[in-house]
């Protein structure tokens, strides 16, 4: 690992000051689960590592006025998975945190670190996208919020500037009829739960009278350079009566919207087909559950 100085900070302004001071030479560390691997493989070289562990204002989960939810960046995946607030807001969101790797990784990795790392195969991002999450970003000029759908730029790249810190994700209130689901497809089954998904599908659906789709949000992971909302499918379903044929037709449109890599978890062709199949099943399941 290349040599570096470690700076433990106690507040966001202190971290921002150091980012300003060291510029390109600095990087942030939250839980360290991903950064340490990247540094050891020589993929990240920073001569100044700024440790956020002591920043209390980056911890916690709470409900927002009106029924939304805020998760601060340093919340570990285990804390998020077990949080009564997360469970009450959306059980499928808790499920997405529980599907990450192993309990050791979930105890170390953080919600904010996971998003800033921007691995397109991780579990929480699709579910957060399907819940219309916004990211809260602190910088030298104050805070800004942007939709998570605009946060990921490319594999392992985000909109975060060199002098910015992801401080929280905020989720809007859900209507009482909304139902969500996160599906992680692992073709090799039992014993492989700690692996990355071959494809993952997250959806939030709220049907009105006669199963008319009032709104729907669909997002997929492991199917391209970034976890992505699939607006084309959402548009086909929104306002329509949700019948099996329509759901199947809409799910078929997923294939043209994604660009999955050929890799050890399957060929691009296979993943496209599985994205179609599992999108259809997730939507069908959400409809039947209501």
């Amino acid at each position: 690992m290349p040599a570096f100085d470690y700076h433990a900070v106690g507040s966001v302004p202190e971290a921002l000051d150091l980012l300003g001071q060291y510029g390109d030479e600095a990087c942030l560390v939250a839980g360290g689960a991903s950064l340490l691997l990247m540094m050891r493989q020589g993929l990240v070289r920073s001569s100044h590592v700024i440790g956020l562990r002591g920043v209390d204002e980056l911890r916690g989960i709470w409900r927002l006025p009106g029924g939304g939810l805020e998760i601060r960046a340093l919340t570990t995946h285990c804390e998020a998975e077990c949080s009564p607030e997360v469970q009450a807001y959306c059980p499928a969101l808790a499920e997405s945190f529980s599907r990450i790797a192993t309990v050791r990784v979930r105890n170390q990795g953080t919600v904010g670190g996971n998003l800033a790392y921007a691995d397109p195969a991780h579990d929480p991002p699709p579910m957060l996208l399907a819940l219309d999450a916004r990211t809260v970003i602190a910088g030298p000029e104050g805070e800004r919020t942007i939709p998570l759908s605009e946060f990921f730029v490319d594999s392992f790249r985000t909109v975060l500037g060199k002098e910015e810190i992801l401080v929280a994700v905020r989720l809007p209130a859900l209507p009482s009829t909304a139902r969500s689901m996160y599906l992680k497809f692992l073709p090799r089954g039992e014993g492989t739960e700690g692996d990355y998904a071959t494809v993952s599908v997250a959806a939030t659906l709220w049907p009105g009278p006669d199963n008319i789709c009032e709104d729907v949000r669909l997002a997929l992971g492991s199917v391209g350079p970034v976890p992505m909302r699939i607006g084309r499918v959402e548009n086909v379903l929104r306002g329509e009566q949700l019948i099996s044929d329509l759901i199947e037709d809409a799910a078929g449109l997923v294939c043209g919207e994604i660009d999955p890599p050929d890799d050890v978890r399957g060929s691009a062709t296979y993943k496209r087909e599985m994205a179609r199949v599992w999108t259809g099943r997730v939507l069908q399941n959400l409809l039947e559950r209501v």
Partner: protein
Amino acid sequence: MSVHHLKFELNGELREIEVAADRLLIDMLREDCELTGTKEGCNVGVCGACSVLVDGQLLSACLLPAVFVDGCVIQTVEGLAGDGPALTSVQEAFIHRGGFQCGICTPGQIIAATALLAERPRPTADEVRRWMMGNLCRCTGYYKIIESVLAAAEIDEVQ
């Protein structure tokens, strides 16, 4: 490279130590503290051989910078039973149920099982499998490991 003065509790004993910023917890434990029970396996957080408890939380020592444990309470396999002759129920169960073959993964398995039983004293076999999924056994002695964890839960209940 910056150097950091750490204070922490290791297996019930207060320790103070100087480490470089890039020191990993596993190297600090094995080399600086001379506790070699914690094993290095994959070195990328996957195999679980380096499992330790930090403030009661199950973590991989190979992924954790030593500077992160300043002010923390660390337990390694050496500290589970203390100085007395009696082993913990998990350790007893692994011996009597044959929960190991070559033994290299055993410290990690025992630490992981200890963390599970602290959180869930009577887990189902499925819960044991799911929790222990991140602790690999290259001898593939999984059935006996799961049996051992379930047996340890029973010993705890009787006591």
